[in-house]
């Protein structure tokens, strides 16, 4: 593409006018309204669909919905998810004996939520996950379930999946 550059006068070629104009602009900003959010005191209203802490959900029967299909483990770009599957007496046959998410690796992409066929994993609106110890960032099944949501779910977010097929 051909870009036509404006013909500049000698004065303009020194760039002083442009520089001064720019300085004026930046200076004027000093007096504008501040947009900073005073974080711990003020907080965002999170938009719906905000992708924060991934958690595990339970079904109406109180058991985790996860069937250990490992699609999330497969899709997870940073390989933050580790699942050990096992057989259960429940109708779903299979359940995760172990289910870890390494929050140190998680990039909150939400692929796991997207790919989960049973809507067992969900990115909740929690985002304050910092810790002093990396090992504390590996969230195991119990923890993920504990911070996960239990039915009955809040209205408006998403309807709980019908149990069974």
């Amino acid at each position, binding site marked *: 593409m051909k870009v036509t550059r404006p013909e500049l006068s000698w004065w303009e070629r020194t760039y002083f006018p442009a520089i001064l104009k720019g300085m004026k602009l930046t200076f004027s900003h000093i007096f504008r309204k501040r947009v900073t959010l005073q974080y711990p005191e003020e907080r965002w209203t999170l938009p719906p669909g905000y992708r924060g802490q991934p958690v595990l959900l339970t079904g109406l029967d109180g058991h985790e919905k996860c*069937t*250990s*299909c*490992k*699609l999330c483990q*497969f899709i997870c770009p940073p390989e933050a998810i580790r699942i050990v*599957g*096992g*057989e259960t007496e429940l109708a*779903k*046959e*299979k359940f995760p004996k172990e289910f870890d998410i390494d929050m140190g690796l998680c990039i909150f992409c939400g692929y796991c939520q997207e790919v989960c*066929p*049973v809507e067992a994993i969900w990115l909740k609106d929690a985002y304050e996950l910092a810790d002093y110890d990396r090992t504390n960032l590996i969230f195991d099944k119990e923890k993920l379930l504990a911070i996960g949501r239990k039915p009955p779910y809040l209205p408006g977010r998403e309807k709980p999946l019908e149990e069974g*097929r």
Partner: protein
Amino acid sequence: MPLIRIDDQEIEAPQGETILRVALKHGITIPYYCYHPALSIVGQCRMCLVEVKGAPKPLTACSTTIGALPPDKKIEGKYDMVVSTKSETARKAQRGVLEFLLLNHPLDCPICDQAGECQLQEYSYTFGDPASRLEFEKVHAPKRVDIGPHVVFDVERCIKCTRCIRFCQEISKTGELTLSERGVHTRVDTFPGRKLDNPYSVCTVDICPVGALTSREFRFKERVWFLKSVNSVCQECARGCSVRVDAYKGEVLRLVPRDNPQVNGPWMCDYGRLITERMKGLDLAGRPLLRSGSAWQGYEWKDFGAALVERVGGSPASKSESWAVVLSGRLSLEEMAGAQAVSQAFFKRSAGPVPDVAWGEDDELLIRKERRPNLMGARLMGIPVGEQNAPLSGLFAGKKAALILREDVVGDAQGAEKAAIQKALGAMDLVIVADSSFTETARLAHVFIPLAGWHEMEGVYVNFLGVAQKTARAVVPPRDRRPFHEVASLWLTAAGHDAPEPTFLGWHARVKESVPGLAETSIKELLPHGLQVLDAPAKKKVKKGEGA
């Protein structure tokens, strides 16, 4: 031969051959479920419907045979048959059948072990409609049916292709399975109280095109797309079935037969597969150990060669006749070559004998009573093979030192024989044991060499039919175990002897020198189906599959 056209491809096909076989042979995709190359043709899944010119309705490719037309009736002047697998008619038929198959098939792919290697899944993507038109409750049937000791049956997932039933009728000839009920309630079933319990029962899992039959041992272990597969050889009997070893994260999770008409067809026995279960119980060896008194001392490999040389050289039993060198039929050819070289260099005698361990009986299909995969290899290498099940205590009588490779002579012996061997070994000056697990024999050793398991190394094995096959490394040994040929290189070089490179290829070159059948062959020829290096003695034919 009749000239036919399938889609745009002109093919000369033998008369009487089915369309499906011809198409498969020429790389044309026709979906199918009930057809299996090693089983009879029933044509009941109706998935392989194709359009045949002149036929009023689509025909099943698996059962429609090719015939010759008289010259004046040839289609388009030259073809005996014109088949279309992609025409609107054919596609519609395939789509329709697939829709029917999926009607009552549960959508539990996330749970199903077959997901990832499921023909129903694959064809659904290729041929099916994205959405189901069924708006009714699916027909429910029992799940997790305990159909046999190694097989679990999910009735809902079954698409009634009857491959498993035909397998039991035609291959294992045990007939445990049948269809029961009828209509939409038709299901595969056993007789009450009689399980699917034959030595080949897991083959039904292999041939099940969906996840209806699952292996109890592999069930829910791992999703198949995580598995890393290598071609290998089963180690459990002299048949040496061609297998595929599927492993994940350093653990061998299952063995699946590879279709090899020369050896095992598409089948393998349950006993061979259960090696994954037996491996779990093994106390897998770590690093080289030397014993003085009752204390074991661990070594690094780099120091171990010298330690070995010193221990052997310093032992009073340095005369050749005082050494017993017992090899195993579990050693690969390369390891045998290594053992032979070590034996000649340090003990001034040739290695052997190789005990011929046998139990059970040969059956009509695959299982051999000789339990070592490489006995024929030992014979080819010129290493003497003992009498079948001959007691081993005689080998150690009067000897002062022993080198025992991959054979748990103590653990495998019984009663008085066991005591005799224990006594003989206990009285020796120097016992060197090399194995991949710390066996009972190893407890009596002065030197223990940790060997890589068969799944952790490459090697060539010759089965009783004289077919040489190569294994590949399925798993990197989590601890530092090595195949014996590498140990041999270490040992020989530590003493200043010439030795090949401590690699499979280095020693394989040495093997080629001593096995005439292998001399002219390349490694490539040993893959994937092996190579007949010896005329087989009265070869008993296995029912052949032709590449399912």
